[in-house]
């Protein structure tokens, strides 16, 4: 772009403002992504923005058995090495009781309240001295310490949510809903759009105006009558009212107005001569449509296909009303919603679950963004 006006606006200020807005827009999703691969305890104890830095953990280990104590001039001594020393993590502070787990820094010797002296070194070796009386008891004494845990990333959350969270099954259910509910309206609308643009018939413009009116009808007005209709039909023929066929048909009905509108606008813009020549040469409308118009309309078909795919994949309302909520029919959005209710504070489940539900739309979106944008623009700017 080289419009002269643009040179006058300070480029830096514009760049900074844009950067701020983009950061603002990306942060929530970034938080989801980062959290979904974090260790579940770390996730619950620290903000996701600290994921790249060490986290401080406080735990205890037991010393060697009191039988191993040695009597020296200072008193009775327990010596050994904490297992943490072998991991290479940095020990920060230590102590002898739960109440005061950070009495001393690494390398120091600390005198505890009961008079015992404890030393813990950076390599995990310790020396616990009881000056007055010998160590007793059947187990080793507890040494509390805090250490810096380096960031840990894991795919465990995904494993858990796919199996226990049942998102694996829901993923397949969603595909089962989405593919026919995308292809059927596209085909149906393509034929209708051709008729609306190139076949003269009585009441055509009137009907198309009706389609435009239907573009904005909220699908909420359809729910109650359809729910009743479905259960009546189901009762009459003796099958379950909730099922895939019903959902495909519902999505087809709800998606058609936009599909017809988009494709009719596109087909109408094709050169008139092309179709008329073919007609004069004796091709029927069916042949003209299949052999000429359909191949030329691929961009419009692609735009709407992406629209409908995203819309159906992301839909919750239609799926809640027309599908069963048991494992065999529940879709991703509904299952995620259910998890939000039952596992509301298990963010490792929710974040990884949410990512599974959005991954396919994101892939489709980024790889086919061009078509998607073209469709959006064609659908609203005229």
């Amino acid at each position, binding site marked *: 772009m080289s419009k002269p*006006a643009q040179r*006058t606006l300070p480029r830096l200020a*514009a760049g900074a403002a*844009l950067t701020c*807005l*983009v950061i603002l*827009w990306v942060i*929530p999703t970034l938080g989801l992504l980062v959290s979904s691969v974090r260790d579940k305890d770390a996730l619950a*104890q*620290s*903000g996701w*923005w600290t994921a790249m830095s060490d986290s401080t953990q406080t735990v205890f280990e037991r010393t060697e058995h009191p039988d191993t104590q040695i009597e020296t001039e200072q008193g009775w001594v327990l010596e050994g090495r904490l297992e943490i020393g072998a991991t290479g993590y940095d020990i920060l502070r230590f102590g002898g009781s739960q109440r005061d787990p950070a009495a001393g820094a690494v390398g120091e010797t600390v005198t505890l309240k009961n008079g015992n002296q404890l030393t813990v070194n950076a390599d995990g070796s310790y020396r616990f001295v009881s000056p007055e009386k010998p160590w007793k008891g059947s187990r080793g004494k507890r040494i509390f310490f805090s250490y810096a845990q380096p960031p840990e990333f894991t795919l465990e959350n995904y494993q858990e949510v796919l199996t226990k969270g049942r998102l694996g099954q829901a993923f*397949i*259910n969603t595909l*089962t809903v989405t*593919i026919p509910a995308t292809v059927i309206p596209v*085909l*149906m609308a393509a034929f*209708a759009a051709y*008729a*609306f643009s190139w076949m*003269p*018939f009585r009441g055509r*413009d009137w*009907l198309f105006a*009706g*389609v*435009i*009116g*239907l573009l904005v*009808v*909220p*699908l*909420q*007005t*359809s*729910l*109650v009558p*359809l729910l*009743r209709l479905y259960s009546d039909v189901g009762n009459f023929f003796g099958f379950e009212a909730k099922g895939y*066929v019903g959902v495909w*048909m519902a999505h087809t*009905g*709800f998606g058609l107005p936009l599909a017809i509108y988009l494709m009719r606008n596109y087909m109408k813009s094709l050169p008139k001569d092309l179709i008329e020549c073919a007609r004069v040469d004796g091709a029927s*409308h*069916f042949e003209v*449509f299949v052999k000429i118009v359909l191949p030329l309309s691929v961009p419009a078909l692609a735009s709407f296909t992406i629209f409908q795919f*995203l819309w159906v994949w*992301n839909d919750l*309302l239609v799926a809640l009303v027309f599908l069963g909520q048991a494992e065999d029919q529940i879709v991703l959005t509904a299952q*995620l*919603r259910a998890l*939000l209710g039952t596992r509301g504070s298990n*963010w490792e489940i*929710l*974040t990884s679950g*949410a990512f599974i*539900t959005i991954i396919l739309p*994101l892939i489709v979106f*980024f790889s086919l963004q061009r078509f998607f944008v073209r469709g959006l623009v064609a659908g609203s700017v005229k």
Partner: protein
Amino acid sequence: MSEHITSAIIAIAIGVFGILAYFWISNALLDGFIGRSKRANKEVLREQIRPWLFVGPALFFLFLYLVYPVFETLWLSFKDENSSQFVGFDNYLWLFKDPEFHTTLRNNVLWLLVVPTLSTLFGLVIAVLADRSRWGTLAKSLIFMPMAISFVGASVIWKFVYHYNGEGDVQIGILNALMVALGAEPQFWLSVPFWNNLLLMIILVWIQTGFAMVILGAALRGVPEETIEAAIIDGANELQIFFKITIPQIMPTVVVVWTTIAILVLKVFDIVLAMTNGQWETQVLANLMYDWMFRGAGDFGRGSAIAIVLMLSVVPIMIWNIRRFRQEELGR
């Protein structure tokens, strides 16, 4: 599992090939029945019938799924909860006395004012900024990305942003962490009446800004350069050009974007359901309607009445759309 996949594939095949078979067979039948004869009257008859084969399935679906239900819903809204008795305007009278409905209406008006306006505004600003930036394309992609995310997914993303841990605990929600960092009290945001509505609206603004940005970006590129150059020669500065030349020229598109988002806002359901389910005074029409459909044994009368309120609120936009189309067709 594998059994389920097989039946899914079979079902998909039946659905897709069924529709293809319909078009192919019906057209073949038409050609066969009326005869291959080139006699003029048969040809005419064939070509009178064929359009209806093409639009037939679509019209059937549109009628069954969108047209008929509007009238049926209107009829059911005058009946009782299981649609067995005629109750006149009782459902509507109840509705207008119900305090929850008042809150709902207030919220819907708020949503209608805030979300389309903010989305359009942000979309416009970003479109303008991105056009001047070297990494504008990438920036636009990132802002546009939430469009692909489901409302439920977005709700999870933002619920995590708003997450509240009891006081004294580490705040893992970024909003509360910020509050603490600034020395303020962390809040259980979603339960703060009135303001929680805005927090829910932010989610939809976050999603819809990308849409506004793309459409307005296209319109900005359509502004003829000569008008801008003329203004520069006349000594206009950048702001004057933007507000006096660019904005008036893209105004029709701004209106389209605003109304498109407004229609979406009226239907917003998933976000409220997933975030609060209407608690803490965050109810909206679409969620209230769903709620009444299934509350207890379900009250179809009240649910239908709410749906009709929703329907009535889109009628002006519907009429406007149709008139705009009529004018365009005349202009062709």
